[in-house]
């Protein structure tokens, strides 16, 4: 009975493996908790009062867990760091000023979604082409496309910087969105091709024999079957772009700066000069979308992180 209830809530997904009981759960929970500790520590730091981050010994927990944790390891949680991400006083007793982080968060969201959407439209068409109408040298094209994604970012960036400088695109939205589109395109093509390759050809062939045009087959038959794949590719692209650092560091201007770049600048003073609780608050805000995505995309994660080359 308990099994079936758990199964209803999605616990029993992975089949083909032996069942184990709560003992295994306990063992794995300990390991998973230790593995997750560095992230948990960032989140806790975001809730610490400002001076607490540099305390030795460090404070570790917001509650004493009914007296389990000694008092000097316990901090009093506060929300003020999240407020000062967006506005705080820059001088000891000045009025609060805007920090510009609302702009950086907007930039991150805008640049990521614009480039991923663009890449999704162009890339899905191309993936369908590569999957259903193989060109002469199809594999070579696909290989070159994957290579552009596997390359160290810096190899592409040097000439791109020169090119943008010549054309006047450096520091503009258009420039960085174009670059991210190309960056996501390789990923989208490989990902979507792996979804298209999986579809059974029977329905398509039937439609073709009945005289449907190629475009009709694509829109009416193939596309509806890969909606889940489209969503997964979209969200994955979003996270990859959201996290990207080097392109943004070298190509964004003061107006188009994204959160990772701003974060890096906030820390570059280093050591005691850095306001760690503030930084942790920025990071916690920055991490929320990543957590949600990891949770909802769990079933597509393997395919996503290998660019569709490994499906199962």
């Amino acid at each position, binding site marked *: 009975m308990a099994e079936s209830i758990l199964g209803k809530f999605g616990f029993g997904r992975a089949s083909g*493996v032996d069942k184990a009981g709560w003992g295994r759960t306990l063992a794995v929970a300990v390991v998973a908790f230790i593995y997750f500790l560095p992230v948990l520590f960032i989140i806790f730091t975001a809730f610490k009062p400002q001076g607490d981050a540099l305390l030795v010994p460090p404070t570790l927990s917001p509650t004493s867990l009914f007296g389990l944790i000694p008092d000097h390891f316990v901090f009093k949680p506060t929300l003020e760091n999240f407020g000062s991400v967006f506005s705080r006083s820059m001088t000891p007793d000045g009025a609060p000023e805007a920090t510009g982080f609302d702009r950086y968060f907007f930039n991150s969201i805008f640049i990521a979604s614009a480039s991923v959407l663009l890449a999704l439209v162009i890339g899905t068409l191309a993936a369908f082409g590569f999957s259903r109408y193989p060109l002469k040298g199809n594999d070579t094209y696909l*290989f070159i496309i994957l290579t552009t994604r596997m390359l160290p970012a*810096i190899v*592409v960036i*040097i000439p791109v910087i*020169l090119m943008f400088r010549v054309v006047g695109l450096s520091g503009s939205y258009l420039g960085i969105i174009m670059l991210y589109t190309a960056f996501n395109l390789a990923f989208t093509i490989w990902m979507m091709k792996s979804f298209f390759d999986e579809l059974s050809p029977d329905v398509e062939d039937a439609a073709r024999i009945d005289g449907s045009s190629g475009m009709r087959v694509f829109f009416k038959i193939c596309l509806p079957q890969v909606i889940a794949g489209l969503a997964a590719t979209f969200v994955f692209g979003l996270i990859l772009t959201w996290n990207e650092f080097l392109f943004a560091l070298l190509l964004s201007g003061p107006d188009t700066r994204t959160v990772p770049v701003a974060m890096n600048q906030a820390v570059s003073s*280093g050591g005691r000069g850095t306001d760690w609780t503030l930084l942790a608050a920025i990071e916690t805000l920055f991490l929320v979308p990543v957590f949600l995505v990891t949770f909802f995309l769990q079933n597509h994660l393997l395919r996503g992180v290998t660019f569709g080359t*490994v499906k199962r």
Partner: protein
Amino acid sequence: MTAVSSTLLTPRLTAVVAHNWKLAIAVAVVVSAISMAGLPAAVSFWVVGAAAALVAAAFTVNAYRRHYFGALLVAPAIAVLFVMNIFPLLWSLGLSFFAYQANQQTIRFVGLGNYVRILTNDLAAHATWGALINTAMFVVFTVSAQMIVGFLLAILFAKQFPLRKYLLILVLTPMMLSVVASGVFFTYYYDPTFGILSYVINSISGNQFILMSNKVGAVAGIVFADAWMWSPFVMLLVLAGLVSVPKYLYEAAAIDRISSWRQFWMITFPYIRGLLMLALLFRTIEAFKLADLVILLTKGGNDTLTISYHLIRIANEQNKTSEGAAISYLMLFMVIVLTNLYLYLANRRTKGA
């Protein structure tokens, strides 16, 4: 197929028709060459862009008339990739044969001079080889750490137990984090005065502990952070293999009373071998590019400079553009070899399974 339609589909080079892509290319090359020679760079870029659009349009019309849908569907993607990736790469290939610095006006042809310089000249070659050796060291350490930890994690998760899905998320999250977000906080954990690591070791040994003070510590710090972030990747791949082993093989082995050690090598290992190789290669390619963590944690100090970071310094901070281009091509070559190997194995696995 009549004679009329065949001439319509394959126009002579000189015929001015919408789908004559050969003529379009000829016109585009001439116009681009003239504009690059005669006009300022900012104008000639757009002229070349317009010429490329002309060629693209001719190709599109041609493909459409011939019902050549493959080319039609793929064309926009190839165009974007060409402008943002392939063309810059060709440009930097060209630059690698010149002596050019982005902050100076002079440009001089030196042939293979840059390549000779980065590989054999005293100072430049010393830095290149040093960075390459460091990179190789990081690849060996980080990838083997990830393989071991990832493999062990996969074995832990390879059973079905309550709350599995939620515990898996906790382990998978580090992989999805931004390198900056986690890298920045590793500097906090490693800090000699208020870092949590130093606190633990100080209170055990009683001495002041500074992790980043020597090469061993700095490398260990970077390897630990990288392994923490990417072990879940290996785990995902190995887990996929472990889940795919049919149960009846184990049941048969149990009947034959085969020891669990031999069960692993005879039954489990063949199912995960391909995926292990893929994980190994994928992580090798990624570890080969290691730069962000080094920038964040040591800024290349204590002899932790990797080839990727070396390239950033040469090309972006020291403005030695063409020397950087030569190093780029060195890396490009290595990545192409590794990617080729990766795809070969990935395809063989798909077809063989």
